[in-house]
């Protein structure tokens, strides 16, 4: 009897897991990735999703199963069996989640470490946030000392952003590049991004910074190296202003 219950439960769990997996895979949850760091983040995301699906399937199928199987008839006044606990089971559901979250933590720590290293020769850009606008100043490379309101980046080269704020806290984020960092007045922060796809992506301020917060947006334009160099050259000579 018990054995059959567990088999039925397992089948149910597999069904729920399959349905959830379908939802996870068929809906494009993540925006397209345009950066190396984002790819690594996505890796952690999918690990977490896998674990979440498993846990969700087990819990939900257990609820559904209990609801169907252990429903009391209206005239049934009896009590259930007085089971107070079961040590093996309790150990299992302490140990297994511990292992799973440790796995997430380890992968996360590795990715975090990798995502912070910019290689030996990154392009360096100072990102300045004020209420309610962004500006970007190139600190090295062909466009050195150029300041523009959009962020132009060459494809494939690691970029080290130095993020600063002149007034309150803002936050720099490009969803397609995945990385995010608050701009804190008085404490410059760094952030590494490595674009892997050309295109134009939104730069959004994600930290509430006052009445213009919703509109504090800009663009990150990832260009092929040749195009970037051409732009940088004309900008360096005072040509292009954006």
């Amino acid at each position: 009897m018990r054995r059959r219950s567990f088999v039925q439960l397992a089948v149910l769990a597999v069904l729920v897991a399959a349905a959830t997996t379908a939802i996870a895979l068929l809906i494009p949850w993540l925006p397209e990735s345009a950066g190396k760091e984002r790819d690594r983040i996505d890796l952690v995301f999918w690990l977490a999703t896998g674990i979440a699906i498993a846990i969700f399937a087990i819990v939900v199928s257990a609820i559904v199963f209990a609801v169907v199987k252990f429903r009391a008839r209206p005239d049934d006044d009896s009590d259930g069996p007085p089971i107070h606990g079961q040590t093996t089971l309790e150990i299992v559901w302490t140990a297994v989640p511990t292992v799973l979250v440790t796995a997430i933590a380890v992968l996360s720590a590795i990715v975090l470490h990798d995502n912070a290293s910019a290689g030996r020769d990154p392009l360096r850009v100072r990102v300045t946030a004020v209420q309610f606008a962004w500006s970007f100043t190139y600190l090295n490379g062909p466009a050195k000392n150029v300041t523009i309101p959009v962020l132009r980046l060459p494809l494939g080269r690691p970029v080290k952003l130095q993020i600063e704020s002149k007034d309150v806290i803002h936050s720099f984020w490009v969803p397609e590049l995945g990385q995010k960092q608050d701009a804190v007045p008085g404490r410059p922060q760094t952030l590494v991004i490595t674009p892997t796809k050309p295109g134009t992506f939104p730069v959004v301020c994600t930290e509430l910074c006052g009445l213009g917060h919703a509109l504090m947006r800009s663009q990150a334009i990832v260009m092929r190296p040749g195009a970037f160099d051409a732009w940088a050259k004309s900008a360096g000579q005072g040509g292009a202003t954006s």
Partner: protein
Amino acid sequence: MSKVTVEHEVQAAPPRLPGRGPRVLLSPWFRLVWTIPLFFGIGAGIVSLVRWLEGWHPIWQGSVQTTVALVTIPFGFLVGIGAFDYWLAYAIGQPTRPEDHSSHGARSWRDYLRVNTDHKVIGIQYIAANIFFLIAGGLLAMLFRAELAEPGMQYVSTQTFNGLVSVHAALMIFLVIVPVFAGIGNYVIPLMIGAPDMAFPRLNALSFWLLPVAGIMMLASFLVPGGAFATGWTSYAPLASHQPLGQVFFNMGVQWAGASSIMTALNFLVTIITMRAPGMTFWRMPLLVWANFTTSTLVVLATPFIAGSQFFVMFDRIMHTNFFEPDAGGYVLGYQHIFWFYSHPAVYIMMLPGFGIISEVISTFARKPIFGYRLMALSLVAILVLGFSVWAHHMFVAGMAPWLRVPMMVTSLLIAVPTGIKIFSWLATLWEGRIRFTTPMLFALGFIANFLIGGLSGVYLGSVPIDIHVSDTYFVVAHIHYVLFGGSLLTVFAGLYYWFPKMTGRMYNERLGKIHFWITIVAMNLTFFPMHWLGLQGMPRRVADYQDRFADLNLAISISSFVLGASIVLFLYNIITSWARGPKADGNPWRARSIEWQVSSPPPIFNFDEIPQVVGGPYEYGVEGARHAVFSGNGAVRLEDAEKARR
């Protein structure tokens, strides 16, 4: 040990207030006419005097005096309604006389509108006030959801929008979820542990009356120039130190609400430690009592930190101090560390009592003992301890010391373990039970599934790389509502339906309750689940306007949020009409074991004629002849009789 009782029966005589004026000016409430001006006058006078002495101009400055008002008027109010009468009499040395219990218990509805020392009355006062603020906070959400239905700006300015969001969250957290558990606990805990009342009934009354003060203060911020506080419920410095006047209403509102919750928590701790019935060892306490015990510990130790953080912001704002001013040596991120050192534990303050409620409901309606009772209690303690070590997971992208990230990630993720123990133990409790699908049980099951989703999204957030991507986006908003609505609020509904017969002596309408449940669950998921997608795709939180590509989904969310709002009307209709003319409930309609069910519904004014004797665990369903508590026999309700009467 008799000292305790002696003091209980002796109280200072009420103060003989001087003056010949009409007596009505001295009676509680009417007194407000002069106590509020008096207190404000004193405060404003002192401040003006200082300004005059220091030569600051103008001597009377509106924004400064508003702050003074927010500090002094609450005192005037509390004195006016009579919350301090006893202590004033004590302070000026009035002789003591036997307690006549005149301020205890409710004999008519008017007794709910005065300073009452009965924990049952206070519990209901709390719950009523919390439901009021739930509606207020919910209506604000309806307003900003209307604005968010389309991209672009339609009805409100961005500052007003931010104000709506901030007041929504501040009310929901500080005036709904945190205190409603204190309210439910107030009603139930003394009965559950076999105590005639809380340890400090007058302090208990004072704690309650601080709440309307705090809530009305927050709502009133909409009326001042510059509008309501608009920096989110987190109110980060340095933005918050340079905001219009409304900000102070948050700073001070939080202080009053915080003071209230510290006092209640202290009261719970003392009550649970010193007033348990004979035989009620810690390992025989119902899990709700355990949950309240751990929660109260969190409150007592953590709440002062938010008090500190709000003082600092207020000082930076009105006195131009430099706690968070980088140019003068202040440390900007200090605010976040101090704030989250309270506010992370606060999320467990908002969840642990809910866990307690669910344990009561599930074991009662599955008619089985709680699976792994001791581990359930210990996991609460584990969450309490771990809860203090994870605050910086709200600051993964804030620019704090990088080495803090990984340790904080590990502790955050580890909280999944004790929480998982609770979830799995509830499931095991259901297993082979005789499950009855009453409304509270439906809410309990709905809670498990929805809180699970919130907890799992918490694990995503706990992982630093994922959090770097989704921090401060709608993904976090989804998490918030799955844990706070799908978690805390559903447990509140479960608890309110569960104890409704006990509190009112009447049954609620089961059909309406179930309809309420289903609409809530469906609308909730339709409202909040798509937010995960919005966040991952790139929609930041706290924005009045957004990219056009998010338009369709936001419209859908807004529509289902209105349905969700409407579902509360069903709940209100059910509890109001059932209280007025629902069928009478007997003492123990659920055939539960814990002590509150062994007395009449509603319980006698002094809870018990005699203190029960606890002889076993609280959940011994199915164990032949097992008893949790017995009355010696000359008392009101005997368990055996109740049991017989039922059959």
